[in-house]
């Protein structure tokens, strides 16, 4: 054992080949290029196949990590993909966007002394391998139960619920408000981090299993929850995300050139404004761009601005890098590409030119005080430290709220004081009989895998509910 262990640890963690920062900062192609079969196998051999694998404690959906890695080490890539899919329906997405460094890889034993196994990269490799092979195995679908489920929203939560319930023999219809399915995966996360082809493949897979997808259907407007029940749906899942943008409500925030991150990313990703004028939707091409915030959304906006031709992109964040909620990899990639970080700084006002366009952002310096309820040290403004940064475009990326359309049109559906839907953590059950909810609309902005995990639990509960009816 110890002999074997020593030998295995000698293989270094396999690096991920990436596009060169100088080149990639002006294109929208994916940054990490993916492992080859050889590097994947080498990386997989680093795993010592723990009897009590601690990595799995870090995975919100209990992927059999050593199990799939063993299959990779043996060259059984298709089998490995199927192994992951037993519990995670979106491996190609998760392998790319999960914060592995704070989940499975954070708890991998190899990480104690050296580098953890690159679980995320292996997950991505096998999922891509399966997709490219064209040998996507369709699972057995149970005989029809005659029950119908409406899934509202096609983000990771909704897609997961749909996939699980269709396999159990229920008829599933997804209602999506936008003209494309995928939620944040299509409108938020940029192409260079998550190619849209992958999301389309996931949705296509569900449709092959028999899921009906109805786009341009904002529930609450086109139809209400009660209309859906009246049409004969037996249960409803709400996975509508936390899609309403937050602004700071400071002077000048409505000047031209100031976007919410949602608008900026939607124009670029969903509407493909980065390919204007081939696509019709325009987007401002700032030369000096300020991006306010410190999360993944901030990094995605900043890196998009670079790719659209900015000379200077400044991330303006009120705390320090340590407190930034963005993934380490995103901050690293952004910095490599030339994004500049202006930390311990907060905007207080936007300045405009005579045409109503933003020309500067007045900021104030901050210092860190006592920890607040989130455990992070509270930023406090330093009196008299105001200064102006010249910008001609700004993206406000400081978070999102619940969209009130569904709660406002669904009598009896309980929400909390922030407008998020109240749902049982284990089942997704809401205050309305037959209505379940999960993902960002319950937790507030979180992660793809947590949304997918909530979808799994809700699907199980919905199945039990339908059987008991």
């Amino acid at each position, binding site marked *: 054992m110890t002999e074997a262990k020593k030998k295995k640890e000698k293989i270094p963690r396999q690096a991920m080949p990436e596009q060169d920062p100088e080149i990639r900062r002006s294109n929208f192609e994916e940054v990490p290029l993916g492992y080859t079969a050889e590097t994947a196998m080498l990386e997989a051999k680093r795993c010592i196949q723990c009897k009590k694998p601690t990595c799995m404690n870090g995975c919100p959906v209990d992927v059999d990590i050593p199990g799939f890695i063993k299959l990779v080490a043996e060259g059984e890539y298709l089998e490995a993909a199927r192994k992951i899919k037993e519990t995670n329906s979106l491996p190609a997405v998760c392998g790319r966007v999960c914060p592995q460094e704070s989940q499975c890889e954070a708890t991998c034993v190899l990480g104690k002394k050296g580098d953890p196994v690159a679980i995320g990269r292996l997950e991505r490799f096998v999922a891509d391998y399966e997709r490219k092979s064209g040998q996507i195995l369709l699972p057995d679908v149970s005989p029809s139960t005659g029950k119908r489920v409406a899934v509202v929203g096609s983000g990771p939560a909704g897609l997961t619920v749909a996939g699980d319930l269709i396999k159990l023999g229920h008829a599933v219809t997804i209602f999506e*408000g936008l003209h494309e399915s995928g939620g944040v995966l299509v409108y938020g996360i940029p192409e260079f981090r998550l190619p849209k082809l992958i999301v389309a493949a996931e949705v296509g897979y569900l449709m092959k299993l028999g899921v009906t997808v109805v*786009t341009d259907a904002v529930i609450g407007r086109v*139809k209400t929850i009660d209309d859906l029940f009246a049409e004969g749906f037996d249960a409803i899942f709400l996975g509508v995300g936390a899609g309403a*943008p937050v602004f700071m409500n400071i002077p000048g925030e409505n000047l*031209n050139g100031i976007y919410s991150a949602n608008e900026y990313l*939607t124009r670029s990703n969903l509407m493909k404004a980065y390919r204007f004028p081939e*696509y*019709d939707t325009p987007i*401002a091409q700032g030369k000096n761009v300020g991006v306010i915030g410190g999360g993944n959304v901030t990094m995605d906006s900043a890196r998009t601005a670079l790719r659209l031709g900015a000379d200077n992109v400044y991330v303006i964040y009120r705390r320090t890098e340590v407190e930034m909620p963005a993934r380490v990899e995103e901050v690293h990639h952004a910095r490599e590409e030339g994004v500049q970080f202006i930390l311990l700084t907060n905007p207080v006002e936007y300045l405009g030119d005579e045409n109503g366009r933003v020309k500067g952002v007045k900021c104030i310096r901050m210092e860190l005080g006592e920890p607040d309820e989130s455990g992070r040290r509270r930023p406090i403004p330093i009196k008299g430290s105001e200064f102006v940064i010249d910008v001609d475009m700004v993206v406000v990326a400081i978070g999102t709220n619940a969209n009130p359309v569904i709660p406002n049109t669904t009598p009896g559906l309980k929400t909390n004081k922030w407008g998020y839907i109240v749902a049982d953590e284990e089942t997704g059950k809401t205050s309305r009989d037959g209505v379940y909810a999960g993902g960002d609309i319950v937790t507030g902005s979180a992660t793809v895998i947590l949304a997918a995990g909530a979808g799994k639990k809700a699907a199980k509960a919905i199945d039990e509910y339908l059987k008991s009816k």
Partner: protein
Amino acid sequence: MRTGEYKLNLIREKTFLSHAVVKMVIDAPNVARKRKAGQFIVLMTDEKGERIPLTIVDSDKENGTITIIFQIVGKTTTCLSEMKEGESLYSVLGPLGQPTDIEQFGTVVCIGGGVGIGVVYPITKALKEAGNRVISIIGARTKDILILEDEMAQISDELLIATDDGSYGFHGFVSDVLQKLIDMGEKIDRVVAIGPVPMMRVVCDVTKQYNVKTIVSLNPIMVDATGMCGACRVSVGGCTKFACVDGPEFDGHEVDFDLLTSRLRMYYTQEKEAMENFRCECHD
């Protein structure tokens, strides 16, 4: 990923109301069933197109159709105007926005300018049906581009017409006609004014003096039109509102028209570029 069920979006009828204003009847049964006066749709002509908002001018629940009337101003509206009966739009989403506040107010003056007449039409109709005495004032630059005269006449107790060049009706602006009504001692309980931003602003300037509540419909640039992006933000009474979900109608006396005008100009250069590059590849 897209599917069939709601994807009919077939153009049933297309009529030019003037050289630059088109009326279309479109299959959209779900929209037709739910829509109320004052609401709008967002449509895309093709996959690479922009999402643009257009008011639902009328609907026919039985036949499952809605009517839109639009002015050709840029690439998307040009593209739309070139689509033929029997072709289908890529995407139609609606009904969106808050319906108009319809009550029996007493005497209501409904004012429409240019293509705004199409937008004010369903509201006028609903106000009339609610038992109001409706005086309508419609206006255009010149006679040839005045739309919906007969339709407006049918649903109004009185119809007044103004053209900027005097080629038809009163020579002047709709706001001048309104001023005359007031001067003649007409007691007005509410005004609804929809049209170009300068027109709405002038009407509000008039009604403010007499403290007559005035509803305007704002047309900021929109993207999703579901409250997700904030592109459509307008300032009303000093507060930021999202026109797509909080509006599009607001109290005209509270609206910051300068901001609206400025935000409408945001993409001026790109819109010009799109138009110049334009070859209608949008519906092949």
